[in-house]
């Protein structure tokens, strides 16, 4: 091809032009046929959305041991905020919130189950991280998680400010984790930190008066305060924000957009009542009705 004689363009000979012409004709002939073969494998509009509609059942990956997100009631049925949101998607798809098949999975199976098509979507308090976003696609957020300080209602300390004034007398339990001590010291710089090996013992240490506060997920604090209002209280301080969103297998913008639409409308418009009721049920907080008129998501904050 004689690159040494000049630029590639300059060196194109007549023979090359003939070859190019033949190639172009061949491509124009074969391409529709190739495209039609692809269309045969995945008919027009046959993305995940159509697949789910045809199946008449939504398959959702979730857990079963983490209240208030996904856990079992006394009859063994899955309940929780994640479950409510999954049912909302099913309601949008089939006008029937019961058309969901839940696949119980450990947190480390969330991404593998998605990418191997075992499930259509994950609703399992999945924290959005840049690393995970390279493997899955996240929907819009449906909750902003944080860490909060759970306290006993009978505690001699009233709230966060009171804990702060307790200085190094304050003891806080937290799950053993990377930098757990520094993490607690962001909220209570002089506190004594007790690192325990499970969330259950972190809360148990509070129950047994071994500590003055337990640093746990804010949603857990809200759930426990709703469930046991006479026993627990929230210190009123939250930190370390992280986003929860649903996740799908990458490469299907129609399906992702559909889920985003359902979640968006649930948090701002048509299905707001359902989202509000779930939020109240699991976190004990009544959300304000979105204002009518200018869309709330573009509204300025004054």
């Amino acid at each position, binding site marked *: 091809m004689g690159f040494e004689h000049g630029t590639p363009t300059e060196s194109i000979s007549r023979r090359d032009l003939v070859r190019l012409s033949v190639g172009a004709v061949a491509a124009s002939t074969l391409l529709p046929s190739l495209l039609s073969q692809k269309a045969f494998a995945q008919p027009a509009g046959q993305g995940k959305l159509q697949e789910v509609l045809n199946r008449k059942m939504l398959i959702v990956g979730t857990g079963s041991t983490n209240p208030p997100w996904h856990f079992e009631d006394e009859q063994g049925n899955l309940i929780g905020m994640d479950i409510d949101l999954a049912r909302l998607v099913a309601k949008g798809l089939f006008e029937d919130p019961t058309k969901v098949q839940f696949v119980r999975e450990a947190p480390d199976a969330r991404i593998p189950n998605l990418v191997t098509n075992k499930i259509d979507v994950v609703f399992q308090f999945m924290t959005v991280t840049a690393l995970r976003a390279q493997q899955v696609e996240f929907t819009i957020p449906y909750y902003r998680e944080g860490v909060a300080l759970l306290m006993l209602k009978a505690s001699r300390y009233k709230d966060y400010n009171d804990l702060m004034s307790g200085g190094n007398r304050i003891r806080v339990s937290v799950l*053993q*984790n*990377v*930098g*757990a001590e520094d993490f607690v010291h962001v909220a209570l710089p002089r506190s004594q930190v*007790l*690192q*325990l*090996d499970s969330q259950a*013992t972190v809360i*148990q*240490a509070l*129950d*047994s*008066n*071994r500590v003055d506060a337990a640093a746990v997920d804010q949603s857990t604090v809200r759930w426990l305060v709703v469930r046991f209002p006479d026993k627990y209280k929230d210190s009123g301080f939250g930190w370390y924000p992280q986003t929860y969103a649903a996740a799908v297998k990458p490469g299907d913008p129609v399906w992702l957009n559909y889920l985003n639409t359902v979640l968006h409308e649930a948090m701002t418009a048509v299905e707001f009542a359902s989202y509000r009721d779930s939020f109240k049920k699991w976190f004990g907080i009544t959300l304000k009705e979105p204002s009518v008129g200018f869309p709330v998501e573009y509204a300025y904050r004054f």
Partner: protein
Amino acid sequence: MTALQVRYYFHWDVVWRHIHRLYGGLFLGLELAVVALFIGSLIGLGGAFARTSRSRVLRAVFAAYVEFIRNVPLLLLIYFAYFGLPKVGISFLNNVSSFVMALAIYSGAFLTEVFRAGIGSIPTGYIEAGKAIGLTRLQNVRHVVLPVMFRIVLPSLSNTFISLFKDTALASAIAVPELTYGAVWINVNTFRVVETWTVVAAMYLVTGYAIALGLRRVERRYAVIR
């Protein structure tokens, strides 16, 4: 087909950087085991004499204690001492003393049986001889039964001490900063699981073996010739 190759690069420096947590934890574990063995031995001695006494009530009480403790996991006792006792108003024990108490009660049950077997192994002629030279019952226990019994049970006491030392690993469940707790801390903060557990396993092994060698010398020194 190429076989799947997993390359793992060791980073021992991560463990050396935090080695003070492991050394500190090792010495704390040894202290916990020694204190628990001492208290457990006192419980065990009392239990052994109660189990061999003429009182049916005492025998029944200590038999129940031994059976209860022998059939309950140590971790459960630790949780009970640390999380359960404050619920009934006993909260003056911190995590270290809660653990020592649980371990002492646990070892006390096993040592009751060890000492009982030791007392049972003393030839009756020794006790009869004590009586013959005019020793009171208490003097007989102090000058004849206890010295002979301790020599008989020394090998079992050594084993119990090594077991107790290894059991101190369970103290990590209530945040006592012993060796295993130190290892978990390094793991969760550096994710160097293989390096950390390798070093910790070696530390347990060397320490346990050193204790065994030392106690074997003591056993030889005080061996009973029968």
